[in-house]
């Protein structure tokens, strides 16, 4: 059997047997990336709404910066957070380097621009039609922008899924600030990187398939919720 065949079989076995170590790794992956998305969506949606209605001189420059940060390399984020949190860094006294908290911080920074840039565009488009009626009713610009987020909530779900996808699939940042410590900061992607460098390619690929299966489950869940709600509430 070739590597691909072996990997698919292995991935299937891994899922069926629900190996304790794998479950722990998956749980940590979901926890880290889920928390990061939660934080990033809090800050990012507010920033996106704010930027959609903001009027100041440097606005185009800020938008350009946010859009550029969409391509932020995860290794660079990891490095910056590492330097901030390392013992000799400005936040070294927190003592959180090589903990899941550090990983959450790094991924939050990584996906914040995704949420901010996409939600800004979303709100700006929605406001093109909705701005006058909402202002006419007496809503202030920022409130109108938040209303538009609520209005376009299903598109917002897609934005958040995009952010989650970016977070759970990245390896550079979590590797550097987490350190891939077995049982403490080891997540799916760092495991895959480790198995690859050890040469166990079928296992590495199988883990990759498991990761995809998890993301698939998350997306499917979101889809079902969306369809049901849309059908019921329009």
């Amino acid at each position, binding site marked *: 059997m070739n590597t691909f065949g072996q990997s698919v079989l292995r991935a299937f076995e891994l899922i069926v047997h629900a190996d304790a170590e794998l479950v722990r790794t998956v749980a940590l992956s979901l926890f880290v990336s889920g928390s990061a998305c939660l934080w990033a969506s809090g800050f990012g949606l507010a920033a996106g709404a704010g930027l959609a209605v903001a009027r100041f001189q440097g606005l185009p420059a800020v938008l350009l910066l946010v859009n550029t940060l969409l391509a932020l390399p995860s290794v660079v984020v990891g490095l910056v957070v590492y330097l901030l949190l390392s013992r000799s860094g400005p936040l070294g006294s927190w003592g959180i380097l090589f903990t899941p908290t550090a990983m959450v911080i790094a991924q939050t920074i990584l996906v914040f621009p995704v949420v901010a840039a996409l939600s800004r565009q979303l709100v700006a488009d929605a406001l093109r039609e909705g701005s*006058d*009626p909402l202002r*006419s*009713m007496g*809503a202030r610009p920022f409130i109108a922008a938040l*209303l538009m987020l*609520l209005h376009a909530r299903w598109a917002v779900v897609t934005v958040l899924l995009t952010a989650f996808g970016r977070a759970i699939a990245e390896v550079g940042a979590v590797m550097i600030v987490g350190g891939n410590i077995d049982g403490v900061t080891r997540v799916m992607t760092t495991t895959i990187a480790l198995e690859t460098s050890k040469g166990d390619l079928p296992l590495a690929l199988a883990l990759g398939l498991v990761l995809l299966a998890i993301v698939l489950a998350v997306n499917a869940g979101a889809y079902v919720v969306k369809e049901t709600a849309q059908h019921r*509430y*329009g």
Partner: protein
Amino acid sequence: MRAPLSLLPLKLEGVIFEARGHRIIKGISTTFKHGLRTIVLGPNGAGKSVLLRLCHGLLEPTAGAITWNSPEVPGGPRKQAMVFQRPVLLRRSALDNVHYALKVGGLPARERHDRAYEALCKVGLEAQADRPARVLSGGEQQRLALARVWALRPEILFLDEPTASLDPGATHEIERVILALHQAGTKIVMVTHNLGQARRLADEIMFLYQGRLLERQPADQFLKNPASSEAARFLEGELPW
């Protein structure tokens, strides 16, 4: 207790509006008082919608002054309202949409529910109160937009082609609500593209042409015997609508 001061009359003095170097409103002076239903007519690009938005405060004039007798208090209840060609409804029930309008419109919480429900009854949507607003038909959605307005009991209502995308039956319903609002004491200022509608609703007609107010006359007189040659050509359908 003293009666609250009236918003009207609304006075426009030498109002000019430019966008991207293009002069859209070229100096309009006029006054809106309580009472008559005013219909704004004019060919495409005459500046009708822009004029309404200027009056309503959605646009700032480039030059000239727009003054209310007694302006609204910022943060206080809204006394003027506008209905647009396409209503923007939130993804909530019909009742909640009206409710929300009252909330951002600055009405105290305890009065909102009764007023919202009453407004739905006025436009004939009480049976749809709990239905999601976005699944209502086009005509029902526009009636809901009017219910939002009704609930606020504005002194003046601006309408920008509220029936442009509706069928005759729905249009008739909207016109009925507009007449009822007027009866209840709201000044009506409405832009329409529909001459039949202007005949049915207008007490007086303002005719705009290329950013200028060419005529303002009682409806009968304007429709039978317009003073300007542009208006005559417009009524005969020779100008682009």
